[in-house]
């Protein structure tokens, strides 16, 4: 992985942006999810020390990132997260609830997410990846063509279906069934999206066999589908 050269000083706009995007989300995540249990009334000294050390690790990581990038990453990522986890373990050992306020915890999780993005490496502004001397030369890969109506229809179908599953899962009121519904919505949504993408993109000319061959290959699953649908019809008739 190539590491972006860090501005050595914070007294410039790029330097401030480089360090700020790593520091501020981390401080926010720390304040909302680490400091609150660590500085609760019943917290032990060990918990508080771990929390303070985590924050110091983050600051040190951001400071060293411009000088020794590897050390900066070790302190700012591994040190900070490791000490934050140590704080949580110690706080639980002290009998402190980690997330008494669900809303604050949710915002804290958001802070952790932005922190993770902040420590990621992005392409620098106005840089072209192909200008890198390590790029392997060769003809650029051309697009095989625009997607057709069938592709758009299939993908839209999958997308709308996957989103509707999530909405429908919220209709389930019983708590245990609601968890099942959300799990099913997620799994079915991913599966449908994957299948829809495959249906949408399978238009390149390649030998795929005749209709009869393809129906024969799917005959087992199609038979099972027909049997289940038939049983459903029977159930409907008997039930009425």
């Amino acid at each position, binding site marked *: 992985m190539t590491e972006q050269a860090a501005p050595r000083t914070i007294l410039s706009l790029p330097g401030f942006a480089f360090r700020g995007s790593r520091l501020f989300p981390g401080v926010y995540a720390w304040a909302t999810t680490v400091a609150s249990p660590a500085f609760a009334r019943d917290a032990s000294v060990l918990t508080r020390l771990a929390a303070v050390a985590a924050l110091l690790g983050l600051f040190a990581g951001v400071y060293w990132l411009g000088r020794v990038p590897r050390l900066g990453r070790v302190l700012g990522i591994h040190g900070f997260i490791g000490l934050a986890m140590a704080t949580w373990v110690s706080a639980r050992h002290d009998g402190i609830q980690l997330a008494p306020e669900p809303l604050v915890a949710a915002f804290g999780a958001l802070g952790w997410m932005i922190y993770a993005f902040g420590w990621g490496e992005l392409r620098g502004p106005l840089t072209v990846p192909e200008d890198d001397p390590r790029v392997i030369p060769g003809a650029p890969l051309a697009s095989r063509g625009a997607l057709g109506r*069938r592709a758009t*229809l*299939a993908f839209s*179908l*999958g997308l*709308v*279906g996957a989103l*509707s*599953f999530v909405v*429908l*899962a919220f*209709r*389930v*009121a*019983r708590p245990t*069934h609601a968890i*099942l*519904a959300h799990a*099913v*919505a997620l799994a*079915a949504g991913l*599966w*449908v999206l994957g*299948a*829809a993408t*495959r*249906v949408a993109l*399978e238009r390149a000319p390649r030998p*795929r*066999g005749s*209709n009869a*061959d*393809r*129906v*024969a*290959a*799917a005959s087992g*699953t*199609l038979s*099972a*589908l027909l049997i*289940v*649908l038939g049983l*459903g019809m029977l*159930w409907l008739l008997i039930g009425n």
Partner: protein
Amino acid sequence: MRVADVVSVVLLAGAVAAFAAGLYVLGEQRDVLALYWLVVGALALRASTILLRPRGGSR
């Protein structure tokens, strides 16, 4: 477009509808019917992808 391609898109639509029906009736507290529609959705989706790529999809 071949007939099998059309059937695969129809099966995909059927699978989406079946999954949606399964989740809808789960909200209506009709668990067995929900399970039934989820099974139908799974089978329809599987059949849709097999119809599209009958040789298991390895390229």
